[in-house]
């Protein structure tokens, strides 16, 4: 019987500093050639003595057999330690876990709040050839909190990228202060569009309200949730939501389920 709790030792083959508190670890598993994932899925990453936590995959799923990357914000003991790690260091990984964002037809709206953009980076980079009619909306408190700045510049050539800062103005690119809600309010959408959303939970109700008002269908709106997780298998109960588990059935759910369970109240 497979031991689902046993991690694999992975080597850090590169570190990218995304911002003051956030690093991307580029990792290689001993059997990386067999590794596959769907954007939106997550890994359990751990260090001996510091425990484990769930982190979304941020890399290109098409290159999963070569490497994977996890983008980590230093907020607790484990993540602070992970953000100090260097090329050549080892970490322990389990996964991938859960269900990622679905394959959707038609134009897609990507909405990320702060660090919530991490799994959405994987969606964008894994679908680079399809993003011509996609629109990306990113909200952050300060420009120093932005992640994947280099990618954004690159994607700007292919898709529509909108960035807004709550507390900063850049006259050429972000002439107004505000939240992602403020830029969404000014947009028009159609019922054929899909939305992939990831960010702090307090952002969700507001975003969803706007999207529904502007014509999107609830079944085409997909949101990624963040919960404390231990087992990753839908047993330990930490990440239970309604009658499902974020680790096993999520972390990406369609809006209908989140409304039914009152997890998002409009």
């Amino acid at each position, binding site marked *: 019987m497979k031991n689902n709790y046993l991690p694999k030792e992975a080597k850090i083959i590169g570190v990218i500093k995304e911002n003051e508190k956030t690093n991307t670890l580029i990792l290689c598993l001993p059997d990386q050639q067999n590794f596959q994932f769907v954007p939106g899925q997550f890994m359990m990453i751990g260090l001996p003595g510091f425990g484990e936590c769930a982190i979304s995959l941020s890399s290109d799923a098409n290159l999963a057999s070569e490497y994977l990357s996890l983008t980590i914000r230093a907020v607790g003991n484990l993540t602070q330690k992970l953000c100090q790690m260097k090329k050549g260091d080892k970490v322990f990984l389990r996964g991938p876990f859960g269900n990622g964002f679905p394959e959707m037809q038609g134009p897609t709206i990507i909405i990320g709040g702060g660090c919530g953009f991490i799994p959405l980076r994987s969606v964008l980079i894994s679908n680079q050839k399809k993003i011509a009619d996609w629109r990306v909306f990113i909200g952050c408190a300060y420009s120093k909190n932005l992640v994947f700045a280099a990618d954004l510049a690159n994607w700007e050539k292919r898709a529509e990228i909108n960035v807004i800062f709550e507390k900063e103005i850049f006259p050429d690119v972000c002439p107004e202060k505000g939240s992602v809600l403020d830029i969404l309010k000014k947009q028009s959408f159609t019922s054929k569009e899909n939305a992939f959303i990831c960010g702090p939970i307090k952002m969700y109700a507001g975003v969803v309200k706007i999207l529904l008002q502007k014509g999107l269908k609830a079944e085409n709106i997909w949101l990624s949730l963040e919960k404390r997780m231990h087992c990753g298998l839908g047993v*330990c*109960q930490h990440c239970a939501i309604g009658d499902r588990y974020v680790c096993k059935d999520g972390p990406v759910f369609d809006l209908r389920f989140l409304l039914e369970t009152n997890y998002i109240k409009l």
Partner: protein
Amino acid sequence: MNQLEFAKFLSYLFCSGNVIAPTADRSSLRVKKIEKLAEVDLTGALPENSFKDFILPKGEILFGYADLKVDSAKEEMQYLFGVNILDLQALTLFEFVFEKDSYLQKRRQNYFVIGFSSGIEDDYRKYQVFHDQFEDNILEHVLFDVFVEKQKNGQYKFFAGSEKGQKLLTEAEVDDFENIEFAGLIKENGVDQKILQNLSAVENSEAEFLWEELGEKCLACGRCSAICPTCFCFNLEDSFDEFGKIYKKRRQTSCFSPEFSQINGDFRELGSAKEKIFFWYYHKFVRIPKEFNYFGCVGCGRCSKVCPVGISVAENLAKLQKLKKSNNEK
């Protein structure tokens, strides 16, 4: 089988492994490892604790980080004897919940579940449970190795519920036993009505004022979940031994504990007692029944007995059912 032969069977268990059974411990009845046959309680009364901690220990080492190896030492043979029908249902649930857990499945090979009923009428009075579970075919819907029923005439009737149980009885020279084949969790006439009634009463009740009242009253001490035979929440944690070696450990926890839902440093999704107690009821009466079509609460009433502020699950379920009924009538 008469009393002497029954005692012979018990002696066989003591000779060939550890016996975990209910025993009188000062003024209470507790399940623990016992050394002598005379210590086994055969009244059929509900012990204070359940057999849970022997299946899912409060803390267990899963592997060491140094070599990522699992301890392969064979655990001693254990006989969980005197498991009453309610605790048998709880252990049955565990078998399904931990079906893919290599640690519990390995442990399962090294223990026998031996149910015991001291006579249905007596049992029912002593259990003081809030719903009657004693249907004729109950043994077909629980997992066990051996079941012993004390009959009204003082004789003991043996049942084998698994091949392992049949082998044990043969080795213990019990020739006269009936084989019971597990017929699945769901009974012939469908999912238990009690399960469905409780599910519908709890599922959409979050807005009810009752949860406010319970939130005011509940201390979130977690004694209910610690004593509950079907509570199995756990943490995976790192721990150090005296030589500084680091291990991955599984530790029982409670959804009432402050850090249960903590993320990003200090954000707690289950922050208030109201949110915690609703989460707990939802697990018992909605999530488990939907996942397994089975009881998430076996109705033993232990939680109510240990609750320092006297919260009774039975009373609250009755209130929720009444509320559901009156809401339907509106």
